[in-house]
């Protein structure tokens, strides 16, 4: 691998093994593509979940997933309660509904990212869903459906505070797509104290009044 990634390992003892494993740049990309391939071969769900039954996953059965796989959905179901602690509704049904809707909007958003960035996210999600890499890089020991909110929060903090840029980048990617899908959704605007476009303007503008 490049000497750039090798010479960075000395100052950072606890991260050493992971650094050797997950190089930034090309090394990281190569590793991640291998993960994607391996994950597919070992039975991880890497294809879009499509329409899935409401009983099965708590999501709206009418929604057709375009990008997220069943495993990705389970990942977000585990992460979002930590991601939006203090912002999600307390009431259980409303809470489930808000999480499921946010995952659908994450899927809708990614659908417009285009092939190149979709591929990057596929690698990231596969890395998080494939047990050996999930354990090695995220230090999450159990499958996502059995991960507690506290453990999910601890994982997010580990990636946020890591000295490995690639893991910081993973943290930013996960939080950014989730934050935008959650806080940007009109029924959640009140969480940030945003009242929406001024009513007088909405009333006056033709695009809000055509059937």
């Amino acid at each position: 691998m490049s000497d750039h990634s090798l010479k960075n390992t000395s100052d950072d003892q606890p991260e050493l093994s992971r650094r050797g494993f997950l190089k930034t740049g090309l090394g990281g990309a190569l590793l991640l593509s291998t993960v994607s391939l391996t994950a597919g071969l070992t039975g991880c769900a890497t294809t879009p979940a499509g329409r899935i039954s409401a009983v099965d996953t708590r999501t709206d059965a009418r929604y057709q997933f375009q990008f997220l796989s069943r495993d990705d959905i389970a990942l977000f179901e585990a992460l979002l309660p930590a991601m939006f602690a203090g912002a999600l509704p307390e009431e259980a049904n409303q809470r489930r509904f808000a999480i499921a809707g946010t995952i659908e909007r994450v899927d809708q958003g990614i659908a417009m990212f285009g092939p190149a960035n979709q591929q990057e996210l596929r690698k990231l999600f596969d890395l998080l869903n494939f047990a050996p890499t999930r354990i090695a890089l995220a230090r999450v020991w159990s499958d996502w459906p059995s991960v507690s909110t506290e453990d999910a929060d601890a994982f997010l903090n580990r990636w946020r505070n890591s000295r490995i840029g690639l893991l910081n980048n993973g943290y930013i990617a996960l939080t950014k797509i989730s934050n935008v899908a959650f806080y940007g959704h009109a029924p959640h605007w009140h969480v940030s104290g945003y009242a929406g476009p001024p009513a007088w303007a909405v009333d006056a503008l033709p695009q809000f009044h055509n059937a």
Partner: protein
Amino acid sequence: MSMNDPIARGLASGWNVTDASKLTADQTVEADVVVIGTGAGGGTTAEILARQGLSVILVEEGRLYYQKDFKMDELTAYASLYQEGMSRVTADGAIAILQGRCVGGSTTVNWTSSFRTPDETLNYWSQSFGLDDLTPEAMAPWFGGREERHTMAPWQTPPNLNNDILRQGCEKLGYSWQVIPRNVKGCWNLGYCGVGCPTNAKQGALMTTIPGALDNSAQLFHGLRAERLVMNQDRIDHLQASAMGPDGVHPSGVTVTLKARHFVVAASAIGSPGLLLRSELPDPHQRVGKRSFIHPVNATVARMSAKVDPFHGAPQSIYSDEFNFKHGVDGPAGYKLEVPPLHPAMAAGVVPGHGKEQANNLGQLPHMQSVIALLRDGFHPDSPGGTVSLREDGSPILDYPITDYLWQGIREAYLHMAEIQFAAGAEAVQAMHLDSDWYTSWSQAKAAINNLPMKPHRARLFTAHQMGGCGMGADAKNSVVNGFGEHHHVTNLSIHDASIFPTSIGANPQLSVYALAARNSARLAQRLVRA
């Protein structure tokens, strides 16, 4: 739809506009000139050429969105109007790239700030790149003409509090500040410029040059991606293009072949080098994609006791050039200070975080104020810019390493932004950096910011201004086009967008693009009409 909307009216009147996603069979079309891109450069070029009686075809990869679509909603706008659904980043993911992808390009989604190219920048270009014709005096009439065409004038309405805090802070500290000229006509002061102007007040390409071109018989294909310029001997023979499907993301499989006497590339500082690289055009000195500049942007946010409502009102109306050319044009990195609008999704995407901390931060959005610094890159040997190259699938990607020279400017900018916010009465200030806390005094902020690690990913960086990659210059050894945007090696190819800037601008670049495109199109029209 209201017939007061110029686009709806034009379409009804029979403009020659083709939604390529509706094409079912391959086709070949021909014109005097094919213009690739419909942003500041492409729109200007198409209008000027069409008014001279030349037949023009405009090619746009994004789709045609207009008033009926502009509903002041972030999620739909980011997904449809921005490159890669607002997920575009530099190669290592460390810098988020905000860039338009729609008819009108970034002018459809920009915040309307309209600055002439600074004299210092033009003079530097003359001295360093042999661009002797681009003096401030020679360019003045072109700036003036474009200011008139796009109704650019200093904003007369009082700034919103978000912007006024920048003014107040500068005033207290004795730093210079000015009112920003905006390209608007009858603006309602709503604050939704970034998601497509809902009132048609913004005089970007969509309300000016695109209708101007279409009124003069130009043809527009939207949802059509320029794949490859194909040469025959020393000239470009045709452009090969792919129709995008109804989702605007995946090609439908239908192709369009566009033949012309002359081709103008105006596909942005990422798209234009990408197209040239895909086309494998002559590039003997390997200049295409090099020296790409972005005005790297960092930010601080402040918590004010007053209600700021940073989502309402003209998004940018005050700026400070106190630190832009302070150390000379080519000294330590200078930066322009401005203010960003903060709507919930934008704020949630920009402010990094999760959990209770994030909920608390965003919960105070109405009291949040932000300042951004736009670093002037490309004027110093230690700021050589980034490189546009092609991914395996042929799409362009920008690699932009941040040099120590720039990190120094970034740290200094964090400091001055925090200083200004405290001077304007901020209760607390946070640098947009993964290691920054909320600081409650200037002295605390100063000490802490001086110790923040200046590292990719930890410092949150953005760019809304992509420039360079097909730089202009007198010498073909270090440039792609000459001072008129004419390709050094291909006679019937011009480049009319921000990609030809040999450095960054040191100001929001739309007027620089409009003016240079107007000047170069006037010359091109003369050439083509005569021929």
